[in-house]
């Protein structure tokens, strides 16, 4: 098998004997080797890079500030970023198809404010959670239809939905809507001690973290084991080809936006349970954090390449960055926006450079 980097014809090349001639039945397995693994899993390199960045940050943090590699810090990292992980997983699907969803933060605001108000009005809390999630799905469905049926560019369609959802949230309420502390929803933030360390240094998780883990697992299953998941990659790689291959492109493109909206709403449930209240200004800027997480994780903004695992790592990179900045105390809080923007920018440039070389 000849490996070539470019797809252009390069004119006459030295002839290689055509593959074939072996009369044996092809075997299912091939001798394992590093090269084989790398060739098969091109995505793994970018995920690995994200993991390296995370590990490097942990080491740096441990050395510079100490107290990073300890159960309480790890617990906080997990608990505080569970919602971001869920957001990032949803957004990964959309970005893999080459689209974008800028409405996720607003979805959280609207669904959680609506949910809190319903809860306060005495509605069944389980029903309330369901409604919150369905609100997210509905908004995602509208975005998907705008993009697919009306040829709206994803960023303008979801930008509009963002303003629409946030405006609707503001119409409902502009003050924090509190959650009744006795509400079962609060249970989602209940802390389970996994490891009892000395003093307050315990490893703690919440159901919210568990939900995030379930979402990640579900996402991985969908991406690797369903035709839908592979179609998502196909659409991102070459939509016209996917169409000609007979894959359900239209349905897939709408579905990814529904997934993004739904998961955003689920992330909102997790966050609201932890915080105990919801407000119309919740989630402002979270779409950018989610996009940054996905990009750091190695997913190409142009689609077709990337991984769920990478996005999860990316979310934790951002979470850890916040921890380090807080520990440092010397970096002004207003710098965080620049830093996130800067990181996003650097990664986008890198993606462009690598694509330019490959392409």
């Amino acid at each position, binding site marked *: 098998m000849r490996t070539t980097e470019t797809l252009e014809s390069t004119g006459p090349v030295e002839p290689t004997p055509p593959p074939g001639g072996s009369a044996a039945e092809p075997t299912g397995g091939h001798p394992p080797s590093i090269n084989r693994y790398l060739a098969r899993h091109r995505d793994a390199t970018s995920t690995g890079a994200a993991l390296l960045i995370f590990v490097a940050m942990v080491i740096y943090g441990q050395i510079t500030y100490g107290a990073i590699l300890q159960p309480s810090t790890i617990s906080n990292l997990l608990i505080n970023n569970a919602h971001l992980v869920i957001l990032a997983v949803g957004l990964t699907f959309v970005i893999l198809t080459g689209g*974008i969803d800028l409405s996720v933060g607003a979805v959280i605001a609207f669904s959680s404010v609506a949910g809190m108000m319903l809860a306060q009005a005495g509605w069944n809390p389980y029903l309330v959670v369901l409604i919150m999630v369905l609100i997210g799905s509905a908004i995602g469905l509208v975005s998907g239809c*705008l993009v697919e*049926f*009306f*040829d*709206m*560019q994803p*960023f*303008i*369609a979801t*930008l*509009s*939905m*963002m*303003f*629409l*959802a*946030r*405006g*609707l949230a*503001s*119409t409902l309420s*502009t003050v924090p809507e509190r959650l009744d502390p006795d509400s079962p929803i609060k249970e989602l933030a209940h802390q389970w001690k996994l490891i009892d360390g000395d003093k307050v240094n315990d490893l703690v998780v919440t159901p919210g973290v568990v939900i995030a883990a379930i979402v990640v697992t579900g996402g991985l299953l969908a991406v690797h084991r369903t035709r839908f998941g592979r179609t998502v990659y196909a659409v991102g790689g070459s939509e*016209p080809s996917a169409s000609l291959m007979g894959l359900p492109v239209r349905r897939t493109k709408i579905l990814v936006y529904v997934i993004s909206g739904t998961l955003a709403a689920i992330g909102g449930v997790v966050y609201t349970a932890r915080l105990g209240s919801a407000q*119309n200004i919740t989630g402002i800027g979270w779409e*950018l954090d989610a996009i940054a997480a996905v990009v750091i994780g190695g997913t190409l*903004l142009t689609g077709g390449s990337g991984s769920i695992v990478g996005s999860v790592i990316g979310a934790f990179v951002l979470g850890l960055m916040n921890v380090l900045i807080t520990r440092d105390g010397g970096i*002004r*809080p*207003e*710098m*965080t*926006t*620049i*830093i*996130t*923007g*800067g990181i*996003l*920018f650097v990664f*986008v*440039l890198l993606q*462009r450079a690598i694509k*330019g070389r490959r392409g």
Partner: protein
Amino acid sequence: MTTDETTDDIVEVPPVREARSTTGGARAVPSRLLRSQHIWAVAAIVGLLCINVVKDPGYLSITYSSNTGAFVGNLVDIARAAAPLIMIATGMCLVIATGGIDLSVGSMMAVAGAVAMEYLSSANAPSSIGAAAAAIGLAVGLCAVLGAVNGILISVVGLQPFITTLVMMLAGRGLAKVITGGQNTTAVNERYRWIANGYVLGLPVVFLASAAIAVAVAFVIRRSALGMMIESIGINAEASRLAGLNRRALLITVYVVSAFLAGIAGIFSTGTVMTVDVSQTGYQFELDAILAVVIGGTSLAGGRFSLAGAAIGALLIATLDKTVVFLGVPASATPAFKAAVIIVLYVAQSRRVRGWAAGLRRSRRKSVRQVVAT
């Protein structure tokens, strides 16, 4: 590699006698389409004013206050509020015409305000024209540089406009915060303040200035070949390249202009209160700009554009904002309404709906083939 057959020969359109189309500014002969768009927007403004008049019959009254030398009234307020919008809508119009987008205009306003306020507060020269001029110069100068960065990243490096300007939006606001150290810097300078709050011939300076600048930009664009060139690269980038147009230079220019005008809008915004609010100044203004441009008849896909339409769109948005407040609707709901309008306009403009409309109008004929893009 030459293609086998161009479907160009297959989807020929029979010659159609069309109304004279717009080529621009002074020599323009408005096309039916653009003209009707403007009328729609003007009618919407009138409609909103009527609604206000219903609530308060004295809404439209304008009085002259001789001690301030100013006309006072709701219409005057609308004009003043429209000033920064007109600026960013003009810049956004040019960017959209090239097929791009500039999401960073709101942050540019904050940057300009931050630079100006910082400079003025450290210069501490409350009545110096020089200080005001320097502050303005530095502010819009920095914005122009940032606009050039946008333009270069998009045209030379080849990044998508939305992600580039999205990052610039983040970075810009962060930069504004860094410039002021996170504070909402206040400064005192009578000359600078006069721009936003003063009156000339009874009319607000800020409105006259924005109108004058918008007219100047339109004049330069349409008088020179820039207008046609911008439209050309927005409609067909490859054909324009083969005709010898310099796409890079044109793209960088429009992003610089957009940032520059956003900087001016920032000057207007901060001048009213002589404070820059690094979180709130210019916040969500990009939506207003996009909406104004779309209302004005410019397609988000790029190509032919209408600066007059964008200006009218800006006036419409200012009127809408004031009306919403006047009617007691919570101001936080307006973004939702604006977003809904963008969606409706886009959908109405879309090919699918136009196809339906055309199909309804046409009598039964053979259906046109779907040409699959190969």
